[in-house]
C-alpha cells in the first residue's frame, strides 16, 4: 500500500458520492418493500419481466377457459334437464301405447289415449324449443335465434342447423356446448333401425307382426320383402323382384317367428289365407313423427286389427329408440360436463401454480429486502457519522 495524498476536494466528493449511492440503494430497496415488486420495469429483470408477462397471459387465458366452462356447464345442464323431461314424457307415452295395444279397447277409449298423446306431442315440441339464459334455442345448433321446431297439425319440422358451436374449455380442448335438435329428436331410426314391418291393409285375419330383430347383420340384404300366407299356417317370403326367399309354417296358437336373410320377426294372432306382411329397409323417423304416427293409428277407424297392433308395437319400438338416443345424448352430456369439471379443476391448480410462479419471480422477498434495507441504513449512518467526524479534522485547527 502506497500512501497517496488525498486532495481535500476528493475527500469530500468521494464521501458524498458514496452517501448518494447508499441513499439510492436504500430508495431502491424501500421501493421494493412498498410496492411488493422485486423489479419495477423490464430493465430490473428483463427475463423475469418476459416470464411474468407470459405467465400472466396464461393465467388470464386459463381464467377465460374457466368462464367458458361455466357457460358450457350452464347450457349443458339446461339441455340435460330438457332431455330428462323429454324422457319422462316419452316414458308416459310408452305406457299409454302399451295400454292402447289391447284389442279389447273401444274406439272411444283409443281416441281418449290419442288425445292425451296429442297433449304430450305439444309438450315435447315445447321442450325442443326451450331456450338458454340468453334466449338462444338449446336445440337449434348454429341457428341459435331460429325456433328449431314448428308444429303444423301433427307434423313437426326442424328449422335449426345441423352443426353445433364448440366452446374452448382449455388450451387444447374444445367441447360441443349443446346438441342439435336434428341429432336429438329428428334423426332417429325408424322401425328397429334396420327394417320396418307392416301388416297389409287388406288383411282379413287378426295376425300382427312385431318390430323384429337382426340376428346376423352380415346376411341382411336391404330390400322390401313380402310375407304372404298361402293358407292359415303356411307362408312364403318374396323379395321385391318376386323371387321366393324362404317358406315356412306358422302355428297360430303358439305364435312364431319368421326368419330369413339374417333377420327375424315375431307374428302373433291368426292370419287368414292371402294376408300379407312387409319387411322394408328402415329410413329415419323422429320422436315427433313416432308420437304423431301413434296418434294417427289410435284415431283411425279404417285400420284392421293386425295393422293397429303392428303399428302400435312399432311405435313402442321407436319410442324405445328415442329414449335410447336421449340416454346416449345424456351420457355424452355427462362426459362433457365431466370434461369441463376436470379441465376447471386442472385450471384451478394451474392458476395456483402460475400465481406462485409469478409471485416467486416478481414479488419482493420481504425477509431478504428487510435485511438488505437495515444493512444499507447502517452503512449510510456509518458513512454520515464518519464524514461528519473526519471532516472536522484539519491541521488548521491547531495552527494559531
Amino acid at each position, binding site marked *: 500500500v502506497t500512501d497517496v495524498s488525498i486532495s481535500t476536494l476528493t475527500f469530500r466528493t468521494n464521501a458524498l458520492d458514496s452517501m448518494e449511492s447508499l441513499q439510492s440503494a436504500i430508495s431502491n430497496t424501500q421501493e421494493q418493500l412498498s410496492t411488493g415488486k422485486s423489479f419495477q420495469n423490464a*430493465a430490473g429483470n428483463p427475463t423475469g419481466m418476459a416470464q411474468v408477462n407470459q405467465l400472466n397471459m396464461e393465467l388470464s387465458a386459463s381464467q377465460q377457459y374457466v368462464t367458458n366452462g361455466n357457460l358450457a356447464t350452464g347450457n349443458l345442464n339446461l339441455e340435460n334437464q330438457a332431455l330428462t323431461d323429454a324422457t319422462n314424457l316419452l316414458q308416459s307415452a310408452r305406457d299409454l301405447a302399451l295400454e292402447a295395444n289391447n284389442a279389447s279397447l273401444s274406439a272411444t277409449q283409443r281416441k281418449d289415449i290419442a288425445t292425451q298423446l296429442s297433449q304430450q306431442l305439444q309438450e315435447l315440441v315445447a321442450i325442443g324449443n326451450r331456450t338458454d339464459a340468453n334466449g338462444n334455442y338449446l336445440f337449434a345448433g348454429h341457428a341459435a335465434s331460429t325456433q328449431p321446431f314448428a308444429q303444423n297439425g301433427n307434423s313437426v319440422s326442424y328449422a335449426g342447423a345441423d352443426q353445433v358451436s364448440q366452446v374452448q374449455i382449455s388450451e387444447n380442448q374444445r367441447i360441443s356446448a349443446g346438441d342439435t335438435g336434428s341429432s336429438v329428436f329428428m334423426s332417429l331410426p325408424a322401425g328397429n333401425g334396420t327394417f320396418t314391418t307392416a301388416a297389409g291393409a287388406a288383411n282379413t285375419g287378426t295376425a300382427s307382426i312385431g318390430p323384429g330383430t337382426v340376428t346376423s347383420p352380415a346376411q341382411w340384404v336391404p330390400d322390401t320383402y313380402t310375407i304372404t300366407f298361402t293358407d292359415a299356417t303356411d307362408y312364403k317370403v318374396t323379395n321385391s323382384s318376386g323371387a321366393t326367399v324362404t317358406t315356412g309354417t306358422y302355428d297360430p296358437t303358439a305364435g312364431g317367428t319368421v326368419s330369413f336373410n339374417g333377420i327375424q320377426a315375431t307374428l302373433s294372432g291368426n292370419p287368414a289365407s292371402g294376408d300379407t306382411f312387409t319387411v322394408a329397409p328402415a329410413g329415419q323417423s323422429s320422436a315427433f313423427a313416432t308420437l304423431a304416427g301413434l296418434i294417427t293409428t289410435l284415431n283411425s277407424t279404417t285400420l284392421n286389427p293386425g295393422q293397429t297392433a303392428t303399428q302400435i308395437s312399432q311405435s313402442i319400438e321407436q319410442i324405445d329408440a328415442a329414449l335410447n338416443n336421449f340416454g346416449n345424448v345424456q351420457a355424452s352430456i355427462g362426459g362433457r360436463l365431466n370434461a369441463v369439471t376436470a379441465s376447471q379443476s386442472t385450471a384451478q391448480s394451474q392458476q395456483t401454480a402460475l400465481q406462485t410462479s409469478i409471485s416467486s419471480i416478481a414479488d419482493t422477498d420481504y425477509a431478504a429486502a428487510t435485511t438488505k434495507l437495515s444493512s444499507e441504513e447502517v452503512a449510510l449512518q456509518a458513512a454520515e457519522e464518519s464524514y461528519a467526524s473526519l471532516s472536522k479534522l484539519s491541521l488548521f485547527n491547531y495552527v494559531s
Partner: protein
Amino acid sequence: MADLLSTSVSGLLAFQQALDVTSNNIANASTPGYSAETANLVEAPGQSTGIGFIGSGVDVQSITRTYNEYLAQQVRGSQASYSSSNTLATQAAQIDNMLSDSSTGLTATLQSFINSMQSVASTPTSTAARQALLNQAQAVAQQLNSYDSQISQYGSQLESQLNGDVAQVNSITTNIASLNQQIAAESANGQTPNQLMDQRDQLITQLSQYVSVQTTTESNGAMDVYIGTGQALVTGSTASKLTTVPGAYNPTELNIAISGGGTTADITSEISGGELGGLLSARSQVLDPARNAIGQASVAVATIVNQQQQSGMDLTGAQGQPMFSVGGVQVLPDTNNTGSASLTVTRGSLSALTSDDYKLQSTGGVWQLTDVTTGKSIAMTGSGTAASPFQAAGLSIVTSGSPASGDSFLIQPTAAAAAGFSVSLTSPSQIAAASLVQGTAGAANTGGATVSAASITNPGAWVSDTYTVSIGAGNSYTVTNSGGTQVASGTYTSGTPISFQGAQLSLSGTPAAGDTFVVGPNSPANTGDNSNILAMTGALAASTLNGGTTSVTAAANSLVSQIGVITQQAQNNATAQQTANQNATTALNNSSGVNLDKEAATMLQFQQAYQAMAQVIQASQTMFTSLITAIHG
C-alpha cells in the same frame, strides 16, 4: 553586512511569494479543475570570494501547476463513456417504463382482446359480448397509437437535445480556441499561464461530457481537440462548428455535421461517446427498433384478424369486413437522388416480414436491397415491374421512372404501421363470428360421414358459390361449382380436410362412393355459429411471425425483454463508467488537487522561514548597532 541584508530580503520576498501561492491553493481548495500550484525555489547566484562562492539568497524560479495529462485523459475518456451510457440508459428507461407495466402492457391488452373473442365464441349472439370485443379492439388500437406517439415524442425530445448539445459543444470549443490563443501568447513571453491552462483543461473535460474527444498539445502550450476518427474540432486558436443537418432520408431525424474551411461533412457515424453518442445510440438502438417492433405487432394483429374477419360471416349475414386498418410501408427517397425513380412498396407474407429497415439502391441500373439493421444484402426475386414486383423480406416492390446511379430509397416496412392502426368496425354485429360457408351432407348419402366443419382458409381465393364435393370410387373426390365446372379433385384421406378455392371441408366418419357434400354460403340464420371467431383466437395464438416461429403475443413480449436488456446493459455500463470516472477523477484530484493539511504544513514552513529571515535582519541590525556603539564608545 550589505550582503546579509540583501540575502535576507531575497528570502523575505521569496517566502512571501511562496505564501501567496499557498494562499491561492487554499483559496482554490474547492475549485473544480484547479491544479495545485507550487512556488519552485532556487538558490540565488553566488558571489565569488577568496574563500569560495557565497550564496546571495533565494529566488522563486517559477510557479508550476501539478498537472497530469495522462490522468486527465482518463477522466475525459471515462466521462465520455459514462455520459454516453447514462444518456442511453435514460432514453431506454423511458421506453422500458412505457412497455413494462405487466397489468396494462401490450401482452396483457392482447390477451384481454383474445379473451373477449372467447367470450363472443361462448355467446355469439350476445351483443354485449360483441360490444366488449369491439371495446377491447379499441383498447389495442389506443395502446399501439399511444406507444407510437410516445416514441415520437421521445424522438422529438431527442432531436432537440441533439441541437442543444451541438450548441454547447460549439460554445465550449469556441472558448477553448480563445484560451489556446491567450496561452500561446503568454507562452511566447516565456511564462506558463497556469490559470488559463486549468480553465482550458476543465473545458475539455466538460466537452467530454458531450462527445468523446482526443487531444494533442502543441509546443506553444495550445491544445488541439479532435473528434471521431480525427476531425479537428479545435486547431490552435480556430474552432470548427458542429451543426445538425436533416437526415438524407428522414428530415426529422437530424445528423451531425462539421463545418470548417468552407466545407461541411456529415460525421454522424463518427460520433461516439458523450451525450451526443448516447443520443444517437438511443435513436438507432432503442427508439427506431421499438417503433418498428410495435409496428410489426400492429401489422400482425391487423393482418391476422382482418383475414379471419373476411373468412367469416357477420351477424347480418354479410361477409366480414376488416376489423383494423394499419399504416402502410414508408418509403423515403434520399434527398440527394437525381433520377426520376419512385417506389411502390406493399407488404406480402406476414411470416417473412421483419422489423428491420431496408435500403434499395440503384447502381448502374441494378437495384440492390440491403438490410439497414444488419447491413446484409438481401436477394430479391422478380424484376421490379408491376407484373413481376421485386419480392424480398415480406415486401413487394414496384419501381417506376428511371434512377440515376447511386439513387437510393429507405424502406421502412413497419415504422408507420402503429401510427395508422385503428378500428374500422363500428357495429357489434359486424364481428364475423360465423363461418362464411357451411357444409351439408347429401340427403341420399349412404356412408357414415358427417360434416364436422366447413371454413374459408384464404378469403382472397374464395369465389362465393355453391360447390358440390362428390365422393367416387376409392375415396377419390371431385369438386364442382354450381355451373358444373370441376374446380378441384383428389383422394380423400380420413382426417385431412378437402381444400378448394380457398375453402376447406372437414368430414368425420367414412364417406361412401356416391356420397355428396355441399359447401356453400352460410345461412344468415346461423347466428350461433362461432367457428370463425374460435379460429381467430387460434390464428392469433399461432406462430405466424419471423418465419412462423413467433406468435404475436410472444413478439410483443420479446420486445419488452429486449428493451429491458438494452436498458439494463446501459444502466450497468453507466454505473461501471461512473465508478471508472470517479476513480479517474480521484486519481487526478489526488495528483493535482489541493490537500489542506499539506497546505497548512507548507504555510507553517514558509511562515517559519519568513520569521527566521526576519530574525536574520534583526540580527544584522543588532550586529550593526553593536558596531556603531563600539565605534562611538
